[in-house]
């Protein structure tokens, strides 16, 4: 069986290593098959450099029409699976057509690459960066090797970050005023706030704060909107009386959040909302949704 298998195996083993691979931070990423793999992390303007190593199997030679490495930034819409839209595409030719008999290493470098968008894995869309090595061959098909990258981009501290404050209610039934300390939060932030009860005429079971993600893809008539509740955090148990104020303290760290994405390449947007939900004893829900902006703050070097 071994030789048979060998017949269909590619003639060589292609591997990609990054020059700073040992130091570079790796983050877990969910692959299509559901498994999580550790993937090197890059930021926009990073220089992506490394080596491509082609190692023919024992006693085999590899004929090729050229070797190249590409850095691709792709957006894939799931309703149009397999069809990638490349918004970034950089190529480095590594070798002229010829034959490879033994292990051969090609260094490559993409200096200060502009990677404006973050890697994103959504419900209906994904955005990925990938290094693609192609060993072009004629009849027997090219040999391809991919290396995924994760790109995360830091945003500076927003200049303006107002609190969210609002009074809402149902006439003669419930009046509340809520306040979140900011409108823009970084991903490890804490949402602090208070809910004031100005009028309470209904019996409440509990009050939750939800974080909802709204992903909209496509444009015009083809727009798909998908909303997920990422966090459901109980703020209050029981019915308060008039004048009561309930504290809000929600740590964002435990949740799988991304920064807010607005109109990424005209393909999709990802927005976040805080949804305050009051549930009464008859399980009726009263809610008020407020958009918040999430951004990625440059973490301390230590963490």
């Amino acid at each position, binding site marked *: 069986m071994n030789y048979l298998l060998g017949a269909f195996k590619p003639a060589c083993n292609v591997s990609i290593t990054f020059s700073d691979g040992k130091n570079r931070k790796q983050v877990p990423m969910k692959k299509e098959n559901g498994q999580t793999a550790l993937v090197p992390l890059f930021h926009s303007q990073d220089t992506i450099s490394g080596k491509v190593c082609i190692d023919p199997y024992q006693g085999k030679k590899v004929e090729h029409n050229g070797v190249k490495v590409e850095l691709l930034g792709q957006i894939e819409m799931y309703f149009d699976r397999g069809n990638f839209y490349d918004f970034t595409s950089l190529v480095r030719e590594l070798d002229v057509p010829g034959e490879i008999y033994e292990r051969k290493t090609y260094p490559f470098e993409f200096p200060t690459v502009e990677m404006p968008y973050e890697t994103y894995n959504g419900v209906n869309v994904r955005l990925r960066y990938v290094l693609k090595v192609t060993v072009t061959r004629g009849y027997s098909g090219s040999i391809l090797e991919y290396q995924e990258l994760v790109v995360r981009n830091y945003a500076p501290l927003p200049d303006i970050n107002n609190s969210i404050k609002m009074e809402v209610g149902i006439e003669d039934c419930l009046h509340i005023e809520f306040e979140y300390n900011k409108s823009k939060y970084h991903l490890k932030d804490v949402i602090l706030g208070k809910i004031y009860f100005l009028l309470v005429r209904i019996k409440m079971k509990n009050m939750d704060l939800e974080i909802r993600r709204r992903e909209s893809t496509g444009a015009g008539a083809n727009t798909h909107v998908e909303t997920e509740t990422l966090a459901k955090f109980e703020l209050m148990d029981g019915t308060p*009386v008039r004048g009561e104020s*309930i504290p809000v303290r929600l740590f964002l760290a435990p949740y799988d959040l991304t920064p807010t994405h607005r109109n990424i390449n005209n393909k999709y947007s990802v927005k976040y909302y805080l949804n305050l939900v009051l549930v009464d004893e008859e399980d009726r829900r009263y809610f008020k949704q407020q958009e918040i902006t999430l951004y990625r703050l440059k973490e301390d070097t230590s963490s």
Partner: protein
Amino acid sequence: MRALAGVEDEEKWLAEGIAGIQHNAFFMHRALDANNLREVLKYSALMLSELRTSKLSPQKYYDLYMRAFDQLRQLEIFFKDESRHGLPVVDLYELVQHAGNILPRMYLLCTVGSVYIKSKQAPSKDVLKDLVEMCRGVQHPIRGLFLRSYLAQVSRDKLPEIGSDYEGDANTVMDAVEFVLQNFTEMNKLWVRIQHQGPGTVREKQEKERNELRDLVGKNLHVLGQIEGVDLEMYKETVLPRVLEQVVNCKDKLAQYYLMECIIQVFPDEYHLQTLEALLAACTQLMPTVDTKIVLTQLMDRLSNYAASSPDVLHEFLQVEAFAKLSNAIGKVIDTQLEMPIVGAMTLFVSLLTFTLRVHPDRLDYVDQVLGACVVKLSSVPKLEDSRAMKQVVALLSAPLEKYSDIVTALTLSNYPRVMDHLDDGTNKVMAMLIIQSIMKNDSCISTADKVEVLFELIKGLIKDLDGTNVEELDEEDFQEEQNSVARLIHMLDNEEPEEMLKIIYVVRKHLMTGGPQRLPFTVPPLVFSAVRLVRQLEAQGGNIAGEDVPATLRKIFQILNQTIEALSSVPCPELALRLYLQCAEAASDCDLEPVAYEFFTQAFILYEEEIADSKAQVTAIHLIVGTLQRINVFGVENRDTLTHKATGYSARLLKKPDQCRAVYACSHLFWVDDPEGIKDGERVLLCLRRALRIANAAQQMVNATRGSSGPVTLFVEILNKYIYFFEKGNPHITPSDIQSLIELINTEMLSDNGNTTIHSDPFFSSTLRYIRFQKQKGGVMGEKYDSIKL
């Protein structure tokens, strides 16, 4: 929902809850053993989720809570040991807040928080403040109460009180106080809110359940009371105002009542004293349905005990004018709480009075003031009918009696009688009896007419029929006892000074005369004897009263006596009156007031003639008259003759022969008084005796005829004895032969009649004979006298 469910269901739910806790606790322990923080947090949160149930009554919920509580202790030990979970406590503090459900989250946060404080990595006040703030998220009353009580419990030993490890730097005892106050306020709010849960039909059950929970709230006050370093200043400025604010504002009667009680119990007496004003002001602001009187009563009791504990503290009471403040507050409470039953108001007054008596025993004006307020209150309502209120009033009135153990003090209280006026007749009597008993017990002598006047005003329920009293309802025995008491009381009215004593007698008489025929037989004799005592005192002194000469005064007294005894005729009670007349006659005789004595005798005789009809009574009366008359030596010959004549005459007219006989021989003494100046009319003595003999003879014949009653031989022997008496006293008209013949007569009679009479008279007769023999043998003068008698 819960209200509708049966007990059985509840048991089931509790069992399920316990099972849930045990199940998750098992996994938690496994994770603890493996030092797996993530799993520990997961299972502890799951375990605590069992506490989210709404199905259990407070009691059952407590059961559940305690089980979770035990597990949390284990968790705390784990959190404490950083080497086991590898996280700095500050990170842990954040991590537990990731829990999605608030109740488990808060329990975990409190647990970590306590570890956090202990680690001293953050100022305790910040952590405490954060915890107590974050607990606001649990607004469900029962769950919130238990959560906060958990917080109170884990933080109890970590408060930055003075002397604790956590005090210092920026952490002051004020922070500790602030924390406890806030937790208390929130807990109380939750507690009060329980009543708004569920339908009104289960109100009663809810009240009961709430009552079971009250100690959770009260615990905070205990903690406040125990925090080291809360000085008076802080208590006055911060603690008390905040607590009272909460108490007043919660507008819940159960809470107000319980919390006021707590405040009074947990804080030191001296603090109460210094903050009396605030405390009392709060009392007046409580809900009308709150039983303020009990609250106030407790407060006053505490203060009274405090005052009693040491005389050193008394000046503090004066300093803060405790009495005035209390008195005002009580007035306000009574005024504002219109629904308060009269018994409530009375209870308050009793407490206030007790307080006053203990704290200001020297301030009678205070006592009077309290009684005055009581009078005002009582006047505002119709006649008291509530027996409990009545009891309180009795207590109110008894208190000064007990305290001063001297009725005289009470007599100076002008409002005392006014309070008594509001009692019903029965109670009034009870009270009057109490007063009298108090006087008796303490042997206190009332020595001025004014006081006597007041006293009689107080006990007038006993002295006379009050309006509307139904005489027939009175219990005979009670009535007698009452009147006997009054009689005893009269003897306690005494003054060395005759002038004052006379006044007293006037006053007493004035009151007693209103008593009506029922009472007079009881009350007149002591009065008479009291007056007679004065008479004898005056006579002994021979002194003057206010310039008047003694006889004049005496005459006046006798006049009163006369009138007093005369009053008895309305009863009628002739025997008694007769005795009293005779007493007075004797007293008058001792004072050498012949006409007065004569007058009394006249009265006695009139009574005898007109009123005393019963033969036995007549016998007794005659003997009394004779006895008295015999002793009196003031009369001139003429008067005396008249009186003795009368007496002898009455004697002879008695119904039964033996009685006649005895009366007559008794009369013989009227003519022979055995003292140097006494009258010695031997002839008339003999006449009397002969007459007695004749009567005895007649009686003998009657007996012979009928064969009945006791033997007249006895009469003969008695007469014989009289003969012997006068013979010995040297009455010249009694001769040995008289005696001789009498003895023979008796012998003859005995021979002729050897029936039952013999046996009866034998011993008496033989001892008489033995006596004669003895005298004969003795020799000397007496022996010679007897010589001629042959036996």
